């Protein structure tokens, strides 16, 4: 009635919503307490442990079958791909070391020749970051 006087229609579901929210609030407290018990931790731990134990033979069989299949097709195994990825990361690190050395050389040579800040084409002083971002080697994302 009051809502109608204010120019808005009364919502017949309002009472239901309040009841629902009250129920969920109560249930939430119960569930938060429940998951915070040793019993819950024990139950979920046991469930996970059982799953891992029961699925282990299937995983092993699948792994063996996969290795054999990959060998048949002359394809690299997961271990070989992993080893390759590790080598690739090592290579990236060596490149990064070189990049660091180059940066150091550029820094030393520019410090010897010019002041730290440069001059943009608009004639304004621009810090090193903005100058470097204008270089063609940077990649847009």
């Amino acid at each position, binding site marked *: 009635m009051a809502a109608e006087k204010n120019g808005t229609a009364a919502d017949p579901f309002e009472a239901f919503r309040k009841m629902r929210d009250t129920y969920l609030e109560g249930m939430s407290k119960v569930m938060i307490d429940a*998951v915070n018990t040793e019993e819950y931790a024990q139950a979920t731990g046991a469930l*996970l442990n059982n799953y*891992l134990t029961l699925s282990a033979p299937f995983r092993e069989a699948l792994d063996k079958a996969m290795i054999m299949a990959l060998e048949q097709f002359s394809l690299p195994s997961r271990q070989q791909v992993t080893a390759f990825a590790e080598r690739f990361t090592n290579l990236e690190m060596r490149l990064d070391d070189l990049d660091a050395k180059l*940066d150091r050389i550029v820094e030393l040579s520019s410090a010897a020749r010019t002041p730290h800040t440069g001059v943009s084409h608009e004639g*304004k002083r621009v810090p090193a970051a*903005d100058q470097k971002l204008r270089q063609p080697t940077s990649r847009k994302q």
Partner: protein
Amino acid sequence: MAEAAELSNDWIVLDQKLKTFNRLMTTKAAIGQTPKELIWTLNKAKLYRYIPVVPAEERYPIPLILVFALMNRPTIMDLRPGHSFVEYMVGRGYDIYLLDWGVPGPEDEKLKFDDYTLDYMPRAIRKMKSVSGAKEFSMLGWCIGAILTTIYAALRSDDGLRNLVLLTAPLDFSDRKKLTFARWTDEKYFDVDKVLAAFGNMPGEMIDYGAKALKPIENYIANYCKLWDSLDDPRVVEAWHSMNTWVTDIFPMAGGAYRQLIVDLYRNNRLMKGELKIRGEAVDLKQVRANLLNVIAEGDHITPPCQSEAILPKVSSTDTEIYRVSGGHIGIMAGSGAHKRTWPHIDSWLAARSH
């Protein structure tokens, strides 16, 4: 007749709500939209620099690097245009860099905190310094990113780190009664080696379940009920959509790092005890000398405040502050009130220390 028209109208409203609900459940919102440039990569990790919008002369000379957790996308820092921490900070005149760890593959299952803090972070920071031309920098770590930044700050205290901002940092694991995760991952119930032997990396689905199961009714039921009630409010709908896009974008955590998190931190609290070793080097929190802002979420159920409070007496920093915000683990930075409380506070704290 009027009743029939009203009934028809109700059906139209219901149909519209169902369509909106379906769209939210089946599509991805555009998140992480602030313009940025890739400046460095290593394995899956990427370092981005956000394109400045403030003239160079008006910008702060000390760059800020953002480091997020290992098991979620860092796009939460740049959620959506108009409600993005990154966009806000870029607009305030900071030179912002984001370290994105990327998605670990099977080949990354051995990656540990050691690799992240001693291989990835120093290299990314070197690149940031090289690009910005700055000798000093600020660093913001959130959640597990705060663990990594704290370790880095302790191990590389002479690397030019001037300001360290920790957000909801899980550093102290001594009060096990308040830590539900500690109970679940206790060695009596949870065999971390068996899980990692089976999966290599810790599956994102299991991490996601763990986070949601802390508050099961809220996350699995009430969240959707509240959304249903607000489907006619476009602001709520778009905010929910972008947050849901981020939350559901789950991926695994590198097995080695996950094992360290459980064994070294949750079970043995080695960082706080001064027993944590990274590649044989002891992590001594007394070596942390940077100015320190410790942001704590009062309603955080993932990292309860007790986990973050104990760091201050352990460090050597003389300029420290604890900032407590009402809200949850993610809400304090990405919630609707973040732009009124957390962001301005981080901005004002950094501004005073970024010249």
